[in-house]
């Protein structure tokens, strides 16, 4: 897509206005509007960063600086699903690398690469705040898959190939018996 063809729809522009209303400056909306753009295009390559800058009336260099600083923005095109495997601390000592290596073997790519069919990208990431449910991974900046085993990973891949994403999993505290019971009903 050329730079001229990139544009936000009216709905997206309305959303951007709602985001801007939370802050006293346009600049403060940078992160959130980059998210809107990534949602739309699947990445924030330089031309998309420029669209964000122009929409917010900000220097393009500022938006580029922000986009390149934060790891969740994709600066290149990715696979349909990005699998962010945590290997940090608790995940490291609970088999995070086994999960990462298993995925690499199964998909025939290394962390940082995308499968030839464009379906999967694997990334090794830092702590995602699910340390008690290690090892774990996150699917395309969205849902968390917890307490992984190789079998669970295989199932996850199989489901994703069919377009079925895992559902949000509520990790109720073990002390909260009543809540757990209610959730299981």
């Amino acid at each position: 897509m050329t730079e001229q063809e990139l544009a936000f729809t009216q709905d997206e522009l309305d959303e951007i206005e709602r985001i801007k209303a939370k802050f006293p400056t346009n600049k403060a909306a940078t992160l959130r509007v980059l998210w809107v753009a990534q949602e739309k295009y699947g990445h924030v390559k330089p031309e998309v960063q420029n669209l964000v800058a122009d929409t917010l009336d900000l220097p393009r260099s500022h938006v580029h600086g922000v986009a390149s600083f934060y790891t969740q923005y994709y600066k290149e095109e990715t696979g349909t699903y990005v699998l962010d495997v945590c290997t940090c601390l608790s995940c490291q000592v609970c088999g995070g690398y086994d999960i990462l290596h298993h995925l690499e073997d199964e998909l025939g790519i290394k962390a940082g690469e995308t499968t030839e069919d464009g379906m999967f990208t694997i990334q090794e990431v830092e702590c995602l705040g699910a340390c008690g449910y290690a090892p774990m991974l996150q699917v395309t900046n969205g849902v968390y898959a917890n307490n992984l085993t190789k079998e669970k990973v295989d199932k996850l891949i199989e489901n994703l190939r069919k377009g079925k994403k895992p559902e949000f999993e509520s990790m109720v505290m073990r002390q909260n018996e009543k809540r757990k019971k209610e959730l299981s009903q």
Partner: protein
Amino acid sequence: MVEDWKSYEPLIIPDIPNLHRIEVYEEHDGYRAFRRILDNPEEWSRTNVTNEVKAANIRGRGGAGFNAGLKWSFMPQPDERPRYLACNGDESEPGTFKDRNIFEFNPHLFIEGALIAAYAMSVDVIYVYIRGEYIDWVRIFEKAVEEAYEKGYLGEDILGTGIDIEMYTTYGAGAYICGEETGMLESLEGKRGYPRIKPPFPAQKGLWGNPTTINNIETLANVPLVINNGADWYQSIGAEDHNGPVLYGISGHVNKPGVYEYPAGMPVEDLIYDVAGGIRGNKELKALIPGGTSTPVLRADQLEGVSMDSNSLRDAGSMMGTAGMVVLDEDTDMVDLLWRITHFFHHESCGQCTPCREGTGWLEKVLLKIKNGEGEIKDLDLLLDMTTQMEGRTICALADAAAWPVRHTINRFRDEFEERCKKSVHAVA
């Protein structure tokens, strides 16, 4: 040390189904503390609220352990400038996964705490900054904020008192440094999360140059408890000088990992062996990282009689941090572990200060060499030397947080590191 913890009933995340819904929260005395303040503005003047919270000594749950009420009292007298409360839900210290439980299971307790804080400091706008990876929890929390607006607890003319407080939720996009309080302010302003030089402190010049206080999510969730039950009651929970309930995040090699709520000052051994069900596979405990990656690791033999509160952990040679406890069994390779920790800090250094940007990279490189069996004994001393070159020489504490694990892990497990080093290649005449 707390001994009667078995009868403890959670207060931050009590066992009440659907507590995240505002009507359920209200049924269980929710928003009572906030209403009480608004109904009795003389008894509960802004100063009195601050003093009560100060007297309770809620130690900041984000890692620094600073008295929350005392922090509030640093805000200058109101003038024409807008005033902000920035709530830190970045939660990215490895080993920490507690605040997401508050967003999911008891968001209104936090909202009520933030409202009380906003009232006490005459704050106009509350920002809640949540890490971008927690997008599912952002959506859950946004619903709770919506409910609070609908019920008139937020917005203009709150419950007919003429007080206006807005609450805006926003989220990051992946950067550990945005958990540093001024890094978070920069990120809220839509910039790279570069920590700011202090002074000026955020209370003087915070968001867009205006008076701002930053509190952790769990810290603010403690506030309604203090107003409802009083500072003396709060002081009666937990250890001396470290009070109240704590969300302990226990991970690593235990049978029952997860978040548990118990008083501050819990015996470490009870938490590991009783609460978390002991070490997986009946293995021996080797070490504990008590409060997230940055807190110095303790060997099993250093844990006897230690409890989870700042004094006890300081005496043992570590810190409370976020109470994100990582339990390590006898098979843990401390060299691999430390290399991965340095990899983390190298990746997350924002790059502003040379000692941190370069230092974290060199820590990782030298440790990788040792991990791969290519290191020499002198590299260990080089690493220790580097930690002193990094510590205290940067804008924020990330360099310190990277240096401490290196220093303490090498010093406390020196044999393991020496064993991994190759023999000297120099012939001795």
